[in-house]
């Protein structure tokens, strides 16, 4: 098959195995751990596969056909492949709170990316406020790297462990090693850094940058502490802008509090010839992402006449068994790390839309004036109209409207996604070959 891989990043590996080729064999590899190092073999197999590779390329429009438009080194082009596999992964769940736009407030994922790509760690003791495996993993990596943690604010609400216990057996069957690793991170953290459980509210306070951090726990304890850098994390959600733009059917995943494209057993969307693999299909992690990719690849090969359908079906069977097993840990993790309600419906003074600086209170005012949906709110308040195109506020707007109007989030929905998916200059657009525009 003739395969072209278009990657927004400069090197293969996605976010999990980001920069793994350069990091392998350096002291940083030991800090990042074994699971990170395993990416080297996967990237090696990809490099040897003969697939075309265009790194540093932004896809800014996908259409039915399928057809994709992209920009690389300031030059735009389009492609009409026989099949399109979207492996857009995940983004950190938007987790707004008062003061979250101040410089010096970043996500845990951002700090981990800087460790992977640039070999750097916070220069001062850092506060981490979060819930979910990534905050624990990064904290462990930071300590291993010689970094200092001023305190870890665990925002997992009370009662989550009890709710998750019935799902533990399946998780132990699926990924016993990962669970033991996670327990190890938690116990090491509690031993080595101030660890505050059941944090319900956080607020970043400062002028030009964060200066103080205020937090409240479920038991009512309030504290205000000095902070130069605050890292936050509340889990991850599938990146669905491209499938939304294509008009693919999506469904609400209650366990993961997020939308995901509806897929058949091969990973094909409701749009013929468009497949999704990886966390963009629903959060499952690196192992799951690779297996979903293999299954989709078999179907695509069959669709393009390179593999008999019966052979594809037979080859997919054992992969599906491994996929089922890999996904068996999710119900436990999703229940244990389900965010607290304030992540979805933050206090009124919180900036909901970072780009256009629209507060939760303004969204509530809109809701009180009628029963608007996200697109009306966008028109009236400009929320979601900035450069990030609702990637940071879409879920917040949906949750605040649902809360104010007594509706369900899947009923409210997200903004309509408008082209281009990523900003591009008029120069890039004008440089499109005329054949690209008219064909």
């Amino acid at each position, binding site marked *: 098959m003739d395969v072209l891989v278009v990657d*927004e990043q*400069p090197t293969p590996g996605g*976010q999990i195995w980001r*920069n793994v080729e*350069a990091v392998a064999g*350096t*002291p*940083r590899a030991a*800090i990042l751990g074994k699971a990170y190092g395993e990416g080297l073999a996967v990237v090696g197999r990809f490099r040897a596969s003969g697939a075309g590779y265009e790194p*540093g390329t*932004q896809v800014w429009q996908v259409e039915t056909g399928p057809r994709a438009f992209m920009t690389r080194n300031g030059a735009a082009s389009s492609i009409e492949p026989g099949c399109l596999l979207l492996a857009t992964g995940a*983004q*950190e769940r938007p987790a707004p709170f008062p003061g979250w*736009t*101040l*410089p*010096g*407030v*970043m*996500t845990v*994922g*951002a*700090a981990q*990316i*800087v460790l992977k*790509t*640039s*070999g*750097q*760690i*916070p*220069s*001062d003791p850092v506060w981490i406020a979060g819930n979910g495996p990534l905050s624990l993993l990064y904290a462990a990596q930071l300590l291993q*790297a*010689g970094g200092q943690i001023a305190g870890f604010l665990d925002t997992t609400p009370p009662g989550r462990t009890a709710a998750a216990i019935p799902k533990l057996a399946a998780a132990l069957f699926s990924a016993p090693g990962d669970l033991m690793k996670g327990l190890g991170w938690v116990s090491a953290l509690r031993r080595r850094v101030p660890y505050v459980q059941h944090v319900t509210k956080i607020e970043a306070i400062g002028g*030009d*940058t964060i200066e103080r951090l205020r937090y409240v726990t479920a038991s009512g304890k309030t504290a205000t502490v000095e902070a*130069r*850098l605050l890292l936050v994390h509340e889990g991850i959600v599938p990146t669905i802008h491209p499938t939304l733009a294509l008009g693919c059917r999506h469904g609400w995943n209650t366990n993961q509090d997020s939308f995901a494209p509806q897929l058949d057993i091969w990973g094909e969307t409701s749009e013929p010839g468009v497949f999704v693999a990886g966390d963009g299909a629903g959060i499952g992690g690196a192992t799951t992402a690779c297996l979903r990719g293999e299954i989709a690849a078999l179907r695509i090969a069959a669709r393009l006449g390179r593999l008999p359908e019966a052979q594809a079906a037979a080859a997919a069977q054992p992969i599906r068994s491994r996929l089922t097993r890999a996904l068996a840990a999710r119900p436990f993790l999703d229940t244990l790390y389900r965010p607290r309600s304030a992540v979805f419906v933050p206090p009124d003074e919180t900036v909901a839309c*970072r*780009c*256009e*600086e629209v507060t939760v209170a303004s969204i509530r005012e809109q809701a009180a004036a009628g029963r608007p949906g996200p697109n009306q709110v966008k028109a009236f308040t400009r929320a979601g109209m*900035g*450069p*990030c195109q609702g*990637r*940071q506020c879409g879920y917040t707007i949906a949750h605040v409207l649902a809360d104010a109007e007594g509706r369900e989030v899947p009923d409210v929905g997200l903004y309509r996604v408008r082209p281009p998916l*990523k*900003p591009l*200059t008029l120069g890039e657009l004008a440089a499109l070959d005329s054949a690209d525009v008219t064909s």
Partner: protein
Amino acid sequence: MFRKLHDPRGEALTVTIDGVPVAAEANESVAAVLLRQTPVWLRTTPVSDALRGPYCMMGVCFDCLATVDGVASVQTCLTQVRDGMRIDRQRGRPSVAS
């Protein structure tokens, strides 16, 4: 706000941030270089002139926008440094004419 774990060897590049020469390493992003500087902000917002700095580092949030080699509103977390690159903090709404 951040520091390197290692001594950058050999491949040191020089970029300028608001005209001030700053050392960088090959293959790192502009935003990563900025996280080692003071002040750490990169732009002021068009709405309220509030300061913003890198937030997500993976191209999602669009808060690390700055002017790079004269091009406004570049996502610096997705842009790798080049020797001699000119990075300027961006104030308010960029002018179409600039």
